[in-house]
């Protein structure tokens, strides 16, 4: 029983962080129909920012979140004005490959500056603390803090998009660019802002992960694919969709636990014989493929 609840809790907690990772991607896609391959590299940069701030100043990595947010915002805005603006004029294939180029650039710059070694940090005040909530479930404090802060950041962004004038202007741009421009909304600046917010949310997610996820320059691609999966499942451009799909993807990454539980309950030896741990992310890709095929709009999508 504890395997089941343990997997459920772990899946939901990491799912909340995954949702924050995907939030920026879904905002950017909703605004300008561009798929950003470099999204995971933004996360990697957020992780390095938190790591370096924490190591040089000696503070907890979670306290470095504002620094990561600023770095992500500036990075997003400068990527937009320096590169993506020109990309948007071209055909779709150029956009896909262009953001792939951005991903290669960021990844290899990180490789050049930080080297390829795995880096971890264990100086955080929450490291090695855990809550035992009974039934054999132990929640590591770092993961709980990451999940709570991720939900708070997510809610903050949702409020910004849905309860402010600025957010309304951005949503208007996403719905109808030309109409928004006629109403006096500076759509170009809204695009840049979407990249800024997208960058800031994903670097914050990176800073949240640093306590329990080791950092290398190559960490980005996995998160890009996870974010694609979440965005596709939740519906391209849908913010609530990203949240629920994030939780779903979190649960899917924990499915080896459910597999073991089923094997234990049914007592089937062939199920227990197969280790599913190596297929952790295959499940995510498979679910994402199936949802794209069955319902391309995604579960909560409004763009057809």
């Amino acid at each position, binding site marked *: 029983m504890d395997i089941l609840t343990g997997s459920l809790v772990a899946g939901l907690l990491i799912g909340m962080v995954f949702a924050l990772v995907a939030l920026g991607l879904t905002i950017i896609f909703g605004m300008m129909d561009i798929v950003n391959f470099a999204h995971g590299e933004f996360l990697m940069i957020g992780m390095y920012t938190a790591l370096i701030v924490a190591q040089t100043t000696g503070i907890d990595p979670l306290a470095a979140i504002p620094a990561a947010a600023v770095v992500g915002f500036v990075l997003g805005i400068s990527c937009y004005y320096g590169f993506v603006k020109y990309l948007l004029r*071209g055909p779709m294939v150029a956009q896909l*490959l262009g953001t792939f180029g951005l991903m290669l650039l960021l990844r*290899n710059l990180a490789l050049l500056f930080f080297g390829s070694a795995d880096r971890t940090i264990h100086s955080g005040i929450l490291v090695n603390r855990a809550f035992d909530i009974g039934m054999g479930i132990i929640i590591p404090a770092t993961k709980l803090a990451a999940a709570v802060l991720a939900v708070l950041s997510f809610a903050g962004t949702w409020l910004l998009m849905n309860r402010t004038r600025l957010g309304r202007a951005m949503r208007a741009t996403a719905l109808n660019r030309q109409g928004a421009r006629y109403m006096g909304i500076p759509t170009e600046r809204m695009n840049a802002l979407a990249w800024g917010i997208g960058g800031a949310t994903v670097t914050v997610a990176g800073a949240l992960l640093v306590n329990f996820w080791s950092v290398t320059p190559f960490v980005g*691609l996995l998160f890009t694919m996870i974010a694609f999966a979440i965005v596709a499942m939740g519906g391209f451009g849908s913010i609530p969709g990203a949240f629920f799909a994030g939780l779903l993807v979190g649960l899917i990454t924990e499915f080896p636990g459910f597999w073991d539980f089923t094997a234990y309950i049914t007592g089937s030896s062939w199920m227990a014989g197969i280790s599913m741990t190596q297929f952790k992310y295959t499940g995510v890709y*498979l679910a994402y*493929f199936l949802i794209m*095929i069955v319902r391309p709009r995604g579960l909560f999508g409004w763009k057809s």
Partner: protein
Amino acid sequence: MEILKKIFDFSGSPRYGLFATGIAGLAFLLFPILPHSSFSMSTIIQFFMFSLYAMGWNTIGGFGGQVDLGQAQFLGIGAYTTAVMMIRWNTPFWVSLPVGMSLAVAWSFVIGYPLFRLRGHYFAIASIAASLVLKDIFDAWSFVGASRGLEIPTTRYSSPDFLHLIFTQDIYYYYVIFVFFLLGFFFINWFRRSRLAFQLRAIKSNEEAAGSLGINPRWAKIKTYAIATAFVSTVGSFHACYIKNIETDDTMGLDISIMIALMAMLGGMGSLWGPIIGAGILIPLKIYIKEWLGARAGLVGLDLVIYAAIIMFISALEPRGIWGIVEKVRRRKLA
């Protein structure tokens, strides 16, 4: 005879272009006889391989406008079929090549049928997902060596073994892939004027209108996907014999799929020459930058930084590729 005439029909190209092509073809034919370094030899072999991949991609991506970013899975199927058959049953290359091709084409039908319900970004992303699922399965499947990969034992064969395509000298590989390259080139020259290619162009410009004119867009795309797959898996089988050491990361990774698409885009999509030009520029560039910078201590990654910057420049400034520039100049001359 009619079909032969069509294959060798270059009437659309200007005479000086044909002349230059003839010279280039002759230079490639004589290259191994002339003095050269083994490094430049392997670069040209890579160039031939990647232009064939890009030619295959160009049928679906260039003529049909369907941006597929999962071609590496078919490369992997071809390479693994040849390697597994050679290691386990000592099967000749010329037998495992069609087997691998059939498997790859069969798989392309399986995933192509649902995939081609999607368009645009949705298609591109779903094709990545399909490719990643297959890669993860190959990474875990012990029959194909799991994550350790496979290695073809060369000691079993005495070089030159034309039946199994195992050579110790690159010159044999050079001529084998050169023949493949010429076959592929003439096939595309026929293909670009075939009924299917015209259907694809119609689908690319307006799928609804094409459908209303009696074209079945989904079926046309699936057929073209099979052609692209056949190209890629053929060279994948060659890759197995040439490299001899196969791992999923080198054959089925996302990087390979994207590089294939990138070459076709850089050269110019939907043209005969685009993929060849693209591979001719990107492959030497990548290999030589890596040779100059890659090995130096403290500069790990700089070669790919430069490479990435070039990709970004091209996609932002000249997304129609080099063939697009050539056509623009030619049209201006005519006007």
